[in-house]
């Protein structure tokens, strides 16, 4: 019994939630503009809620199990955040209300900006980007604007390490740049020679993820940055991996020019089954004027004892706005709540334990799975999901088999520079017992891969759904149901 589609439920004429009849005299409807039919579901309230409740139970989630999805920082999303973000004063604030009426919201944004500046060591922050990728877009556009502002118009390429997340090259193209890929060296760092050979007068910048997607701290980070700066380029930091760096090392101190932070990773705003995220972008002094805006700022300095008045400030040479209104405000409240509870002490502990958990897993697993870069890792690490002596087994099989043990699989087939990559990020909110259970499952699977590969090919076995035919989905494309029948 699979759960029917919402359109398969209901009955013609059935009503869901009702609304009051208008209490005003009725106006004439604009006959020429009316639609002839409105093919929406006709289900009852219980029917609808039962449907979505049942569906929910088909999901793996952080609240139901371990979710070591590398690069995604699937850590505990504190339930208190879900309360604070819904406080009436926040939930019902219209984004265009006069600033005097929304000092609470503006204060949240202002302080969050200040805290992110402190954490990352940058001069200014815009909370506008909707997600990491939009933070990247903002960053790369600021790089463009910076060069343009200096009359430097020949810079048309962005360098991107081969280990980078797909959004980095995609962002660069969307910003109108040419992308040049830079190889990694045998220790998983940017290959310095390869980098230097591209550091010329056409260089707009480099997008660097540190720790990189192998979970490794870039050992020559300062040299890399120096090389780019030396050629007149700027360095963009992909801060998706900030969960390794809180109180450990500030990207601004390392010389990055601009960085985005994923609130939905490091700062516990929930992933929501795909989003919303929030990707604040932080910049060094020389890029402050280019930030997307408006930004929450102090518009009237506090006179003694009073609070300041916050309002909207548009950076002087802003690249403009990235979306309507002021960013994913509900996520700002959540991140604010989280930082408030952590403080400096807590944030450092977050990264320390995230890194401890990853290294613990690494050490427990590396004898059984090939670890291509055997160094102290940061918050995550990448194994190979294949063995020379188990030729039929691939990372995908391991991933699916993990489901039988109640675990969400690691990210697989990324980063691209590791064959059959299994990218494992445990996060600091998982306890040792959970990690030990995961290790036990991984070892059992490694054994099965050799002794009983069919078990892996057929996995998952214990889940309600078996392996999905993804090829068929793409070939016989069905993207919506036939709601007219």
């Amino acid at each position, binding site marked *: 019994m699979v759960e029917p589609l919402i359109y398969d439920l209901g009955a013609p004429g059935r009503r*869901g939630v009702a609304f009051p009849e208008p209490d*005003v005299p009725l106006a004439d409807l604009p006959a020429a503009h009316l639609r002839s039919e409105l*093919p*929406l579901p006709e289900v009852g309230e219980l029917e609808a*809620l039962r449907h979505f409740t049942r569906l*929910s139970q*088909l*999901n793996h989630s952080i609240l139901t199990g371990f979710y070591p999805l590398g690069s*995604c920082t*699937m850590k505990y999303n504190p339930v*208190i955040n*879900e309360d*604070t973000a819904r406080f009436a004063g*926040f939930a019902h*604030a*219209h*984004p*265009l*209300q006069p600033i005097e009426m*929304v000092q609470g919201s503006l204060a949240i944004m202002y302080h969050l900006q200040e805290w992110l500046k402190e954490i990352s*060591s940058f001069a200014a922050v815009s909370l506008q980007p909707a997600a990491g990728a*939009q933070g990247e*877009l903002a960053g790369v556009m600021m790089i*463009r604007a910076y060069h343009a502002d200096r009359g430097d118009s020949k810079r048309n390429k962005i360098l*991107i390490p081969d280990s980078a997340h797909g*959004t980095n*090259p*995609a962002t660069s193209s*969307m910003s109108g740049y040419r992308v040049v890929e830079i190889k990694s060296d045998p220790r998983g760092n940017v290959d310095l020679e390869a980098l230097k050979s591209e550091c010329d007068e056409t260089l707009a910048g480099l997008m660097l993820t540190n720790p990189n997607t192998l979970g490794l*701290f870039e050992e020559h*980070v300062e040299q890399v940055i120096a090389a780019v700066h030396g050629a007149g380029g700027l360095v963009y930091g992909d801060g998706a991996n900030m969960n390794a760096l809180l*109180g450990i090392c500030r990207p601004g*101190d*390392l010389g990055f020019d601009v960085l985005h932070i994923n609130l*939905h990773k490091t700062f516990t705003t*929930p*992933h*929501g089954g795909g989003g*919303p995220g929030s990707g604040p972008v932080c910049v060094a002094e020389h890029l402050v004027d280019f930030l997307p805006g408006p930004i929450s700022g102090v518009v009237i300095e506090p006179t003694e004892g009073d609070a300041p008045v916050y309002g909207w400030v548009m950076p002087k040479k802003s690249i*403009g*706005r990235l979306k*309507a*209104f*002021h960013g994913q*405000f509900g996520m700002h409240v959540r991140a604010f709540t989280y930082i408030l*509870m952590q*403080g400096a002490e*807590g*944030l450092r502990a977050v990264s320390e*334990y995230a*890194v*401890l958990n990853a290294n*613990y897993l690494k050490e427990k697993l590396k004898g059984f799975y090939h670890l291509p870069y055997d160094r*102290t890792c940061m918050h995550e690490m990448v194994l190979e999901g294949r063995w020379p002596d188990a030729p039929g087994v691939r990372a995908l099989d391991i*991933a*699916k088999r993990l489901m039988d043990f109640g675990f969400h699989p690691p990210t697989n087939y990324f980063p691209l520079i590791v064959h059959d990559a299994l990218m494992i990020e445990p996060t600091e909110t998982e306890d040792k017992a959970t990690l030990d259970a995961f290790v036990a499952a991984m070892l059992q699977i490694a054994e099965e891969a050799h002794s009983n590969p069919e078990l892996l090919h057929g996995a998952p076995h214990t*889940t309600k*759904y078996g392996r999905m035919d*993804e090829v068929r989905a793409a070939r016989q494309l069905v993207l919506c*149901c036939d709601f007219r029948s």
Partner: protein
Amino acid sequence: MSYAGSFIPHTEAEREEMLKAAGAGSLSDLFMDVPAKHRFPKLNLPEPLTEMEARGELESISAANESTNEVLSFLGAGAYSHYVPAGVDTILRRGEYYTAYTPYQPEISQGTLQAIFEYQSLIVALTGMDASNASHYDGATALAEAINMSRVIHRGERRKVILSPGLNPQYRATVHTYEQGFDTTLVGEDSDLNAAPDALIELIDEQTGIVCVAYPDFFGRIYDYSNLAAAAHAKGALLAISVNPTALGLLKTPGEMGADIVTGEGQPLGIPLSFGGPYLGILATKQDYVRSLAGRLVGETVDSKGQRGYVLTLSTREQHIKRERASSNICTNQGLMMLAATVYLSLLGKQGLKQVAESCYHKAHYAADAIGKLKGYKLKFPDIPFFHEFIMESPLAAAELNRRLLEHGIIGGYDLSLDYAALKNCSLLAVTEVTSKEEVDFLVETLAEVSRG
């Protein structure tokens, strides 16, 4: 760990055991790769708080807002007050939904995947398109993506984009930001506000990639874009329509009018105002352009047991596969907001959405009628059909008018002079199902009073 707000479960004994297993003497040992001079900076942040303290703090900050739950408001301009049935948040609060991520592993993500498939179906039904993505950031970025799509569809040719002045100014600003890296010519924004959208027709030429309009437009006006669509198609250009989905409970679909791409802001579908976000970008298109659509798509398939199931599909469009050749860089989208809209549309259904749309329509018209009769006030476009928003021209500057209204406990409409030089003394008023007749009457009385004062 035991500081106030800690969510780190490790006991000291566990930490020591794990450090040993990891071959490290202490936690600091794990960070030897970090340049020593930049290691362990002291962060200047407030002391950590417990949950109880943090809640108290957030309660007072929230109370520092005077929001639309406390003050009567006629603000719209892209974000609308609607009643959200209790069932929506009941579902959104389920940890299985909100603490999952992008459903990469379909076998254990059917909840999210089926919900997306249902959302795609609902958006197709509402808009008359053939396919919808799984969500975009918001109404503004969805429009920017439509233009991006047009570039992909036209393979980089046709660098002229026509933007109607009736598009939300913030959406147009977003498009300008997105187009910075390309030599796109953006035209049309300064067209005469009084000229019907047919006036945009004369701007369309062989260089035009896409024409973008809003439905209802930013001023609440309802136009039939069929002629515009025909004109665009005649020159090989696309038509994108940015919609308010509530209005589609009542109005002819963009599909019927010939739109190629529909974008829109999904916030009215069960998503709280929340100071501007998170909202929901709607992005849908015709069959022909599905492979150029940005963002996630969910398709139907079967599992190894023969059960119907859903998976992410056509991912070769996307950044994680196509990298610099992807049609968009979007990765994380607005999943949970998509779910809100799906639950909202399911709970309201055919009858409910129509009821809401009609209620908005009637209330806004009641308000407009009364204001139109007020001495000193007039409607800017009295002869053009409108949905739930309209322009009121007042005897004084909108900013001053709003200041006075606020003294009477009313948040007035959006001050259009901020974006349109031609719209001096004009404000944009929105009236929805949550506003009662008495409240409208109070507005009207207050308008009469403050224009005297």
